[in-house]
């Protein structure tokens, strides 16, 4: 047993093993699966979920949960898209400012969530649920449901820029994972976050400021959501006020498959990424293995349950 086994665990190995077996099984039925193009597509497309799932893991570590992620995703997407269009007119031709604006907007929304959670001392699930309702309502009220389309080319081409065979978005995902991993593993702040998740009372007693920690992680999650939504609008070339519906459950699922606990204190960044990849592979296999649409949900569910049973062994003695 290594000391910091809450960041790297046997569970991760089981997950990798599960993914490899599943991958072999799929490529037996659909040789296209192993094509380099397909693998990089999986990693590229799922980076949107991957980046947010890492943020969600950070929230889960502290024993909180964020239901409003979909709404934040939609709002930052709309803001980023509008900003990109204005920026284009103003002569800007690099996506960096768009990322910055989107992440900043996300961080602000996350800050509001975090501040309320810290201030009101209520379960985050209910606060973020209320915020989700408010944010979506405001967004629809202001946009009237209209999509923002016709994005500038310098942003949408991002969706096809590849380096060393991987999409740019994959690198952003990797970078996020690394950053948060280092945060949790190597920094004092990161250990404090884990401590808060393990025993909030004790954390408070040794002088950790719970409010600051909550505000910090929710803001980070917001910023990561902004990052993801910018990748999303670059991929799709448009932004919708209804984007991100139901993402919260997908993200939570990925985190928990990866070994996080919704009661806090436990998390694995690698595991979360593997969880996203597992779900992504299953979705990909539905098309590649030509599963009829009416059977897809059933097959997906069965594979998920099998994967859980398989990778959950370590938890039980």
């Amino acid at each position, binding site marked *: 047993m290594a000391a910091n086994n809450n960041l790297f665990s046997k569970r991760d190995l089981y997950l990798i093993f599960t993914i490899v077996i599943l991958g072999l099984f799929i490529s037996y039925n659909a040789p296209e699966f192993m094509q380099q193009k397909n693998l990089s597509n999986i990693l590229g497309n799922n980076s949107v979920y991957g980046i947010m799932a890492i943020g969600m893991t950070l929230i889960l570590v502290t024993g909180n949960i964020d239901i409003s992620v979909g709404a934040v995703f939609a709002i930052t997407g709309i803001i980023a898209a509008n900003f990109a269009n204005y920026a284009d007119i103003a002569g800007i031709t690099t996506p960096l400012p768009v990322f910055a604006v989107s992440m900043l907007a996300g961080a602000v929304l996350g800050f509001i969530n975090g501040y309320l959670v810290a201030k009101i001392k209520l379960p985050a699930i*209910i606060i973020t649920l209320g915020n989700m309702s408010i944010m979506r309502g*405001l967004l629809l009220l202001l946009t009237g449901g209209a999509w923002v389309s016709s994005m500038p080319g310098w942003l949408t081409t991002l969706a096809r820029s590849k380096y060393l065979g991987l999409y740019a978005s994959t690198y952003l995902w990797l970078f996020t994972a690394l950053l948060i991993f280092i945060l949790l593993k190597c920094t004092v702040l990161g250990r404090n976050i884990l401590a808060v998740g393990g025993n909030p009372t004790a954390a408070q007693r040794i002088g950790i400021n719970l409010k600051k920690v909550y505000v910090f992680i929710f803001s980070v999650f917001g910023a990561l959501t902004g990052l993801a939504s910018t990748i999303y609008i670059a991929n799709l070339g448009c932004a919708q006020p209804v984007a991100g519906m139901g993402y919260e459950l997908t993200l939570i699922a990925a985190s928990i498959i990866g070994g996080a606990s919704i009661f806090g204190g436990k998390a694995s960044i690698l595991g979360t990424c593997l969880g996203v990849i597992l779900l992504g592979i299953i979705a990909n296999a539905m098309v590649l293995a030509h599963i009829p649409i009416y059977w897809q*949900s059933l097959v997906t569910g069965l594979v998920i349950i099998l994967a859980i049973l398989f990778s959950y062994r370590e938890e039980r003695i």
Partner: protein
Amino acid sequence: MVSKNQNNEITLLFILIVLVIIFSTFSEGFFKIGNMLEISAQMVELSLLTLGMSVCIISGGFDLSIGAMVGLSSVCLAILISSGMNMGLTIALVFGLLLFCGLINGILVGYLRINSMLVTLGTSSVYMGIAIVISQGRAISGLTQEFAVFGQHYLGIIPVQTIILIVVAAFSLLILSYSTWGRRIYLIGSNYEVARFAGINCGFNIMLVYVYSAAMAFLASLILTSRLATGRADFGETYILQSVAAAVFGGIGINGGSGNLFGAILGVAVFAIISNGFNMLDFSQYAQQIVIGLILIVFLAYRAQHNQV
């Protein structure tokens, strides 16, 4: 001394009354017997599902598969009834099927000790998948007149489904507060490890929780299918988060072991009244969403402040 829980329910009742007064003053149609009964009928399905969800939360878990179970049961009911099978037999069969679904959830969560969210997310996909496969995405109609009794008929002026809800809710309240099973659920929910050391059969009791939740999903789907005279696979989807919200709003502690089903039902009632009242007032859907969110946060903040003192 008024205990915390009672306090909570009194606040909820107070909110209900305030809302009724507000809506009545602004909308003539609101405070009429007809509309009140309509509200009571509208909240039945969500109430039943919230009962199931509340018990799961009290036991320290979640059941995210209720939506899929509603869909599965709805499709099965509609197919069997429309193919001419005897109603009683159909109900028994589909009820049995759902109990079996609940049993699977229960075994995975209770005995194999797998995180309930994960389990029910997975089984949800499976149950929904089965529903889609057997319905092929169709909405199934052709239900008998006889079957309309659960969702469209009245006993006197009271809708049948309201009566079903009252009976089931009363029974559930009794069971949860006064049966050994109910007590053990609270204890397991407040600390699983301590419950194990106190000699409580955690696996079995948790398994029953998911069976109960499935039974509630069945009843909700029975009423829904009968009310809409249609079976559809996606009937239950929107209820999942709503039921969690209603439960927590009604005072069920999200970490397990605390709260009261009566509060949960009151929580649903508040939601139902808000939604009905706003529809009466011709509020735009967006504004409605914003106001619901605000009420949720403001009320809970108020409650949190007062419980601290």
